[in-house]
């Protein structure tokens, strides 16, 4: 017994030591890092402010928890926090310019029945440690994704389509699919947050991708083909420096592209809107995560050098690929009736909503896909349907008529009740970013007799995924270009075209005819726009009549861009790409930015 | 005869409360010769503790010295600044406190509490000398050297009081004021402590004021005895004559109420209550309880007069009245 107590005493003295050590550990731990930094201390060269690009982004814990994670495939990491620019893509795609830009690859072609895709890579491209970038890297990346599947990002997407990637010769790789995948090239090229990163085989081989950090500044990691080298990564900030001379980057050496003018990028954690606005006004930052319309307009008054996508005019930003809609649970009673769904759409005054929530700086969302140039032809194709199904019309009269026809009457307190006397209770869930519009929509519905309320409970994501909700405000990233297939895919209750590729059907809406038509679109190549338009028309005929999802507003990225030190930002009259520096197309912006001084 | 070490002249000390000024000490005049032991007796609330505290300069608001003088040699203590008064304490005038039970700082050792008293008055004493002085002082009050390292809660009541005595005499003061030093102790320990104080007094030649209400103790210890009633001095004189033939009626009743061993079961107290010191009635304050009260007693305050070698404040001995 005595020995027992001693052991317990001993182990818990360790705990006491731990408590002290963990503060101490922070210092020695810092020491190790510090030694690294010490060496680096001399290495962290001086870069003048006017050649530095300071960004305020994520790291909401007031610091970056993932500062040691530069392998974008692991669950804990996120390409938006910096790793994105270290992995150059085979192809970029700019939704605004609606053009594909070959990068590490020179060209690609599908076989006749879209079951094979071949890439021809660009010659003499080298990794930062001198090893040449070859087809081996592309094949290794794709094959590993097929093996790992759900353990890493994009694993499931690639596993569904790709059977095997084969090296034909050092500059040619052939990807064999198990089902026709005409849209796979579009899928893996960089646009917004979608795209598959190509990793150096000689570094990643033999590593466990789920835990491998690919982070060791002394070793020159993360190894990259880009002109960017990681200089410093601590919980409080990330510093990325550009290479010294043009011949250290394959593109500037071969004259494919000239060296970016930005010499240093600093990522700082986002703490709050007030603090960020202050930093941007005082030129302590060059760009940041979105600001609210009222805030960004005030910032631009205080600091005229600040511009947005639409300069100093509302809506102060560009339409994101992420339209916001009110999802109603089509399985719950009342909401399984399409008339009730249409009534809700008619009761929602989107103009008043935009006026109050965004100070007039916003637009209503007409359709479930964003209003992008490459998708406009499809919007044309269904314009006839929009006459009898006006998704943005505010018309309480029509709404009331729909409800009365469906057997609803108003009870003593003015709320609609069905024949059995049960009230239409719409409890809407959401997240903090929807709290500008949530309470206003619920107020509008209450004014029209729907017993609505809004809340953003801590378990909103969980309840939404399990379908434990009446209504939910949410955006959905679907199609960006080509055809609205990626948007329709989200409304499918099941899919035969892509086995196991079905996503979570948040809407709980089932329509077999709709599923069949969308499956057909899945296997139609982008090269046949006519058939795609026709299919879209048929699909939308069902979608609009049923209205499984009530469109609310377009989501705007209102990014403050500071022209004190840097110009040639992507804007409405210089639409080379969308302005979000956290998307995978940041590399394109970095290549375009010009120093102002 | 300038051998009088300490003289109180018409001393007045009032406590200013919401209901009015409480005249705790109202015009007391007495003197203490060098090496003399003066007793101060009276019921509780008669002002004897206030006098002791006033001499030490420890009267705190709402109490205040209204008038009169306290002459230590040529120096009037009432006029001294706080700093000057502080230097006198322990140096010239030592206090043996009443509540011995927690008069010692519970969280520091006995030797530290003796040393800080000495160091407050004389910075230059070396550490070694201080230690020897501590031992010397402890032994002088009959305590072994080990007591120096002990804490207050490790000492008995008697030992605590001895430590207080040791502190009081550590700088050989001229006057030692003992405010009911043994009231909390049992008889046997009481005797030991008083003997210690007696021996020390003789060795140092200091004069002692012993305030208390234990007449038996007074009889054995003091040379002269002063009787106080309601803030005023009613009788003062050599203790033996006073015990033999008390003049003032209050003194007579006080002595009469001493329980003698012979008569068992008979307790004689003094009827009535001590008067309020706020609304002081005219005349002699003892008038309501005085068995030999006269007409004049209720009108005029009796002055202190000589009466066969003693002083007494009572109209019985007022020659004009009798004629």
């Amino acid at each position, binding site marked *: 017994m005595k020995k027992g*107590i001693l052991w*317990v005493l001993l182990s*818990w003295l360790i705990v006491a030591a*731990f*408590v002290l050590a963990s503060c101490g*550990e922070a210092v020695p*731990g*810092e020491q190790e890092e*510090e030694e690294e*930094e010490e060496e680096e201390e001399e290495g962290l060269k001086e870069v003048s402010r006017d050649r530095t690009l300071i960004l305020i982004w994520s790291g909401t*814990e*007031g*610091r970056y*928890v993932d500062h*040691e*994670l530069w392998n974008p495939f692991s*669950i*804990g990491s*996120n390409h*938006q926090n910096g790793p994105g620019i270290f992995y150059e893509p085979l192809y970029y795609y700019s939704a605004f310019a609606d053009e594909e830009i070959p990068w590490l690859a020179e060209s690609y072609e599908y076989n006749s029945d879209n079951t094979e895709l071949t890439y021809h890579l660009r010659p003499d491209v080298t990794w930062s440690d001198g090893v040449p970038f070859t087809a081996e890297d592309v094949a290794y990346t794709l094959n590993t994704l097929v093996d790992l599947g*759900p*353990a890493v990002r994009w*694993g499931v997407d690639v*596993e569904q389509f790709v059977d095997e990637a084969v090296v034909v010769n050092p500059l040619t790789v052939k990807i064999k699919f198990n089902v026709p995948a005409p849209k796979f090239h579009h899928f893996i090229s960089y646009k*917004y*947050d979608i795209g598959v990163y190509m990793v150096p085989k000689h570094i990643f081989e033999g590593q466990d991708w*789920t835990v491998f950090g690919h982070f060791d500044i002394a070793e020159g990691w993360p190894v990259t083909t880009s002109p960017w080298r990681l200089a410093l990564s*601590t919980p*409080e*900030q990330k510093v990325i420096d550009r290479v010294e001379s043009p011949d250290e980057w394959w593109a500037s050496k071969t004259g494919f592209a000239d060296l970016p003018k930005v010499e240093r990028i*600093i990522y*700082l954690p986002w*703490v709050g809107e*007030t*603090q960020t606005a202050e930093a941007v006004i005082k030129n*302590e930052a060059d760009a940041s*995560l979105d600001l609210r319309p009222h805030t960004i307009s005030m910032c631009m008054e205080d600091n005229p050098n600040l511009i947005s996508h639409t300069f100093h005019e509302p809506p102060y930003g560009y339409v994101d690929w992420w339209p916001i809609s009110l999802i109603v649970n089509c399985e719950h009673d009342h909401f399984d009736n399409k008339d009730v769904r249409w009534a809700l759409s008619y009761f929602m005054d989107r103009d008043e909503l935009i006026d109050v929530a965004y100070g007039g700086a916003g637009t209503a969302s007409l359709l479930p896909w964003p209003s992008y140039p490459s998708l406009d032809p499809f919007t044309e194709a269904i314009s006839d349907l929009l006459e009898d199904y006006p998704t943005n019309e505010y018309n309480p009269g029509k709404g009331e008529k729909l409800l009365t026809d469906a057997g609803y009457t108003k009870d003593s307190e003015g709320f609609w009740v069905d024949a059995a006397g049960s009230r239409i209770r719409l409890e809407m869930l959401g997240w903090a970013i929807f709290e500008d519009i949530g309470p206003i929509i619920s107020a509008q519905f209450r004014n029209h007799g729907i017993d609505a309320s809004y809340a953003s409970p801590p*378990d909103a*994501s969980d309840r939404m995924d*399990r379908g434990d909700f009446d209504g939910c405000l949410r*955006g959905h*990233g679907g199609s960006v270009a080509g055809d609205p297939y990626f948007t329709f895919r*989200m409304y499918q209750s099941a899919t035969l075209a892509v086995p196991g590729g079905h996503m979570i059907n948040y809407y709980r809406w089932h329509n077999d005819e709709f599923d069949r038509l969308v499956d057909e679109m899945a296997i139609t190549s982008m090269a046949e726009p006519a058939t795609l338009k026709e299919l879209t028309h048929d699909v939308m005929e069902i979608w609009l009549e049923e209205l499984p999802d009530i469109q609310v507003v377009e*989501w705007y990225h209102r990014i403050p861009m500071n022209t004190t030190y840097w110009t040639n930002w992507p804007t409405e009259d210089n639409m080379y790409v969308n302005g979000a520096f956290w998307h995978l197309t940041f590399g394109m912006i970095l290549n375009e930015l010009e120093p102002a001084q | 005869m300038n051998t009088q070490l300490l003289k109180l002249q018409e001393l007045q000390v009032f406590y200013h409360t919401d209901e009015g000024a409480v005249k705790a000490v109202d015009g007391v005049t007495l003197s203490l010769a060098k090496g003399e032991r003066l007793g101060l007796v009276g019921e509780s609330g008669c002002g004897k503790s206030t006098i002791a505290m006033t001499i030490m300069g*420890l009267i705190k608001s709402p109490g205040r010295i209204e008038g009169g003088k306290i002459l230590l040699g040529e120096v009037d203590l009432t006029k001294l600044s706080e700093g000057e008064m*502080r230097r006198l*304490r322990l140096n010239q005038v030592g*206090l043996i406190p009443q509540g011995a039970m*927690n*008069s010692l*700082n*519970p*969280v520091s050792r006995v030797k530290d509490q003796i040393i800080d*008293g000495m160091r*407050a008055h004389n910075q230059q004493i070396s550490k070694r000398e201080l230690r020897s002085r501590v031992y010397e002082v402890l032994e002088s009050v009959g305590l072994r050297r080990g007591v120096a390292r002990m*804490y*207050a809660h490790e000492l008995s009541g008697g030992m605590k009081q001895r430590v*207080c005595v040791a*502190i*009081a005499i550590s700088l050989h003061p001229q006057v030692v004021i003992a405010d009911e030093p043994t009231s909390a102790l049992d008889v046997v320990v009481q005797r030991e402590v008083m003997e210690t104080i007696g021996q020390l007094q003789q060795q140092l030649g200091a004069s002692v004021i012993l305030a208390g209400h234990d007449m038996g103790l007074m009889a054995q210890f003091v040379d002269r005895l002063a009787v106080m009633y309601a803030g005023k001095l009613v009788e003062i004189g050599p203790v033996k004559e006073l015990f033999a033939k008390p003049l003032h009626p209050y003194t007579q009743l006080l002595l009469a109420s001493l329980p003698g061993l012979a008569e068992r079961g008979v307790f004689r107290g003094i009827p009535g209550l001590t008067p309020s010191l706020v609304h002081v009635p005219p005349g002699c304050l003892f008038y309501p309880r005085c068995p030999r009260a006269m007409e004049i007693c209720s009108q005029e305050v009796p002055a202190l007069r000589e009466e066969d070698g003693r002083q007494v404040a009572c109209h019985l001995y007022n020659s004009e009245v009798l004629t």
Partner: protein
Amino acid sequence: MKLDYIAKRFGIFLLVIWLALTVIFFLPRFSTQNPIREKMNQEMLRGGYVQVGMEQMIEEYESKFGLNKPLWEQYGTYLSDMGRLDFGYSIAHYPKTVKSMLSEGLPWSIGLLGMTTLIAFGVGSLLGALLAWRRAPQVLRYLFPPLLVLSAVPFYLLGLVLIFFLAFENSWFPLFGGYSPGTVTDWLSISFWGNVLHHSFLPALSMILAGIGLWALTMRGMMVTVQGEDYMTMAEAKGLKGSTLFFRYALRNSILPQVTSLVLALGHVVGGAVLVEVVFGYPGIGTTLYHAIREFDYFVIQGIILIVIVAIALGTFLLDVAYPLLDPRITYRRA
């Protein structure tokens, strides 16, 4: 006799820890939330893309972290891990280990909150003591009511007001963060420390102002009772200087109960003041705990709370052992 007293206190120390760990283990598991789904959804809210195979990913990682095993089995491994101080990985930020997250957050929280609690304790107690001390300058009496009002105000609101006037209107102080962006963490250089102090000034000020009032009030109460004690009269009779009377006698005796509440307050410091750190964007352990709770990252929650419990229990344990040194009257007998 001394050893068995310590052993008994240690036994209680362990019991409290075990109970708290059990509560912490079961509490989050009652809800059906899953950290992986939370993380995916948060990314979706920022980036927009809904990860296709999310359900499969969730199953993959649940098996990796053993979350699909029966609850009791999980509880067993959990206790043995805690015993070996292996907190495992943070689910939401896999493969980041909980231990490294702790070591990043703890120094800030302990630094800021430790310092502010000590300063508030020191200044508050001294002020409280002086208020009750007759000879102290009377001007302090006017200082006390505003401090009392300040201590009634929730300190994160105080922080908001301070930010507005001192950091925003006339930017004497930085608005947020542990230290100014762009500086390299170098704990040895003086300028870095200056930077950190400059940043932590406002959060510290708001907590100190809020804390002083309470410490002063309790201290004043104690001083009043201590001044009435007989040993104070004896000390004055010894003709001691005012400062000795104040420090060695009055303060030394009235500080004892204050120290008890100080140790408890210091214990809570490790938990970090979530609200202050969130309002000021301070990179302490409080913000990490807040986000771990919002993301339901069990392992991080358990790691942080173990440290909090250990710190508090350790604090009370050390207090029990050290208290007799503070107050000789207390001995090791049955307390």
